[in-house]
């Protein structure tokens, strides 16, 4: 029990620290949200001069408070407990909750599905490679993954866009959907599916690599442990040893990794959404950083950190239940 309580206390403490850093870090950077917005607006037409009157008006508009930082911190903590994240500077006068709500579904569907799929496929392939370690299957999978892993993700993504969107024109170049109004109609779903294919394929090419290599290496290691040798000595079938002795132990670190990947879903989508112009949370994050959109940034970071910490907590708990050794080591 002490193990679980300790994990819970750690969770609360890190969450508080994360929330506080989340508040402080953007404010300690130089730069002013109003100027950032004006700079972005001037972007298309070359650099423009910034008029102080304009800055003042935009500050007033966004309600950028001149309060001292302690008061701001108090307001911020209070608003978190009320579940209010304020009005986005980038999407003024829309609220942060509205904007995130719009973007979340896209990320959840695209990246959520591909992450789960990558994990399953990667783990299975890794298990297979370890089971057949030293054979051609193993060599092909290991070398193939290592090679694919060295290619930059955006390069693969751009290649896909160039070949399948520009040359063959099978799929749209980017975006989440075309001019049709979002809704649950069949036409929209087909359209959204078409837009999701290329980003999903790009994620599926690179996604399983980590899982393959991790699973294979962990499993090869656990197959070399004493308990596996004992199993061999007992004359158990090779397949049974691989599954019950090798894979069962080897999958534990991968489960933690998977929990973290799901928890960090929102933060880890920046690249794919940038390249494919996908209307999800990753792009929102980049935009919020560029515009010093504190309310939006904080809400996004809060989601990500809470997600990761929560996933960590759950993984710890699951670990404690699945592998009694962990519980004993810690409380001993």
């Amino acid at each position, binding site marked *: 029990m002490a193990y679980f309580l300790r994990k819970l206390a750690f969770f609360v403490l890190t969450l508080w620290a994360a929330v506080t850093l989340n508040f402080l870090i953007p404010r300690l950077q130089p730069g002013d949200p109003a100027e950032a917005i004006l700079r972005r607006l001037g972007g298309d037409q070359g*650099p423009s001069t910034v008029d102080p009157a304009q800055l003042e008006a935009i500050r007033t508009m966004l309600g950028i408070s001149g309060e001292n930082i302690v008061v701001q911190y108090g307001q911020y903590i209070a608003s978190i407990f009320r579940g209010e994240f304020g009005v986005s500077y980038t999407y003024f006068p*829309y609220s942060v909750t509205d904007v995130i709500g719009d973007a979340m579904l896209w990320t959840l569907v695209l990246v959520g599905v591909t992450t789960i799929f990558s994990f399953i496929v990667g783990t299975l392939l890794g298990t297979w490679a370890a089971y057949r370690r030293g054979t051609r299957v193993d060599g092909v999978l290991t070398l193939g993954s290592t090679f694919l892993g060295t290619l930059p993700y955006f390069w693969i993504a751009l290649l896909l866009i160039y070949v399948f969107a520009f040359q063959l024109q*099978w799929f749209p170049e980017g975006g989440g959907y075309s001019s049709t109004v979002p809704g649950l109609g069949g036409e929209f779903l087909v359209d959204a599916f078409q837009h999701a294919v290329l980003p*999903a394929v790009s994620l599926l090419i690179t996604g399983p690599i980590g899982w393959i290599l991790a699973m294979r290496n962990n499993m090869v290691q656990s197959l070399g442990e004493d308990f596996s040798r004992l199993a061999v000595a007992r004359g158990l079938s090779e397949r049974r040893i691989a599954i019950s002795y090798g894979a069962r132990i080897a999958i534990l670190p991968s489960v933690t990794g998977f929990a973290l990947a799901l928890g960090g879903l929102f933060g880890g989508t920046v690249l794919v959404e940038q390249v494919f*112009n996908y209307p999800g949370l990753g792009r*929102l994050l980049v935009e919020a950083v560029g515009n010093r959109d504190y309310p939006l940034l904080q809400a996004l970071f809060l989601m990500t950190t809470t997600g990761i910490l929560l996933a960590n907590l759950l993984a710890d708990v699951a670990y404690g239940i699945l592998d009694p050794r962990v519980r004993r080591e810690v409380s001993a």
Partner: protein
Amino acid sequence: MSRNSRRRAAGAVALAAATAIALAGCGGGADRGGGLTEEGFIQKLEYGGFGGGDNPQVNYNPFLVPTRLAAWEYLYEPLMETNDYTCEATPWLATDFSWNEDGTQLTYEMREGPTWTDGEALDGEDVKFTFELLRDNEALDVDGVWRYLDSVEAPDPGTVVFTFTGPGASAFTLVNNVRIVPEHIWKDVEDPVTFTNEEPVSSGPMTVKSFTPQALVIERNPDFWGAEDVKVQEIQFNKSDAGQVEQLKLSRGDYDANAMFVPNIEEVYVDKDPENNHYWFASGSPISLFMNLEQAPFDDVAFRKAIALGIDRERIVEEAQYGYVEPASQTGLVLPGMEEWLPEGLEGDASYIAYDADAAAEALDAAGYGTDGSGKRLDKTGQPMEFSFKVPGGYNDWIQAAQVMQDDFEALGITIDLQTPTPETVESDRSLGEYEMTFGVRGGTCNMFRNFQEPLASDQTAPTGEKAATNEIRWRDDRTDQLVEELRVAVGEEDQRAAVGELSQIMMDEVPYVPIWYGANWFQYSTKQATGWPNEDDPYAKYADSLLVLTHLQPTGSEG
């Protein structure tokens, strides 16, 4: 990659592709309308982005600068529409204007006939209401027009009278920039600062047809007072894709007009269809070398003049700017658009400082900055000259320009330590005066008062270490202040011209800062469907002057 995994990957892609195609026929690709409507209007023009960020939300409130969608420019109209190239005002909702004797009152005559899209007439009362809306909601007055205004009256529906707190000529462009909104709708708006105006009642040449976060379509307003000049039925704005994808779309001919930076535009765009694809990068505000005038040797005019001679602007334009822009005139004015403002003696090439390394070196010698045995330039205390030059990190073209300048200074024996902190840091250091050399962008707008007041007036500066409002170089000069004040109170353009002329001369003689190159207004256009786009030969507007551009467009082949 192994043969096996390659086959697997290819198989997965093909399967996914086949599924999508089976589901929806042919996906992707550009579906361009083209052609004319029955009335002979251009069916549809495709434009670039429409603002509102990566996940645009509906917002047609013309005063909410950070998030309004591009349609606002076509929905609401100003009293006078300014051509941002020549800075001339074209009659729009007002047909004429006049100043009183001492320049404190500006009277507009309203056009007869404009109506709102709900049928109500647009008159002087709407103008009065709009300006009072800005007065009562400071956040909406983004140009700060009420810094100058005292009152706005509409003695009759056809007349509007602006009374300024002093002579108002310097605020003329600000008044003209304000878009008029309907009183009968907006008077009931609870909080105009958070009003997103989702179903706009407007008066302009176009109305909103449809919106999704991927595309915004506006269509011709047949009841617009100048509808006979509008030959475009629909304009579709398309949310921009990531940089390289956007370039591919441009070169494929997806856009009738766009405003984006493209490296190597001749090859990427023009060569794809030389007959139809064109570009015009009109000059905008100059990017200038700022030197902190509170430090030696930058406080020495002889030093600054020598430096101005020693910068190879042509090479900067070629190597750092793809040759897209023009070297800047030392006057700070954007030429040739504003050449009418030049004083006598500075016409033609006279206000450009030509690169002359030898003359620069001689000038430095003569001013007492000699060289040591190894060719290093020494300051007046005998120390080798070495300056830091702060350029915003990530502004790659600026960094390249600074590298060219580093070479130029090296040739004069001066060492430049190029630093590239974040843009925010550079901005903050510039306003605090915590720099030796840096780039700055001031002036070059159609408001002559702002152009000179912001970079040069003493009341816009502060000592090093304190935040300067806009005079970041820390120029303090009584004669300049006097001329800026004359510009502020000038009655009519003649008086303004006199002050602008003298200020240009100060820029030439005293070199408070060194304009290097003109920032570009990116603009690509195709004449496949429409002609009449503004260009170098016919600079009736910049691309951003949407109302002027729209009313000049003609279906291709129609003008014969």
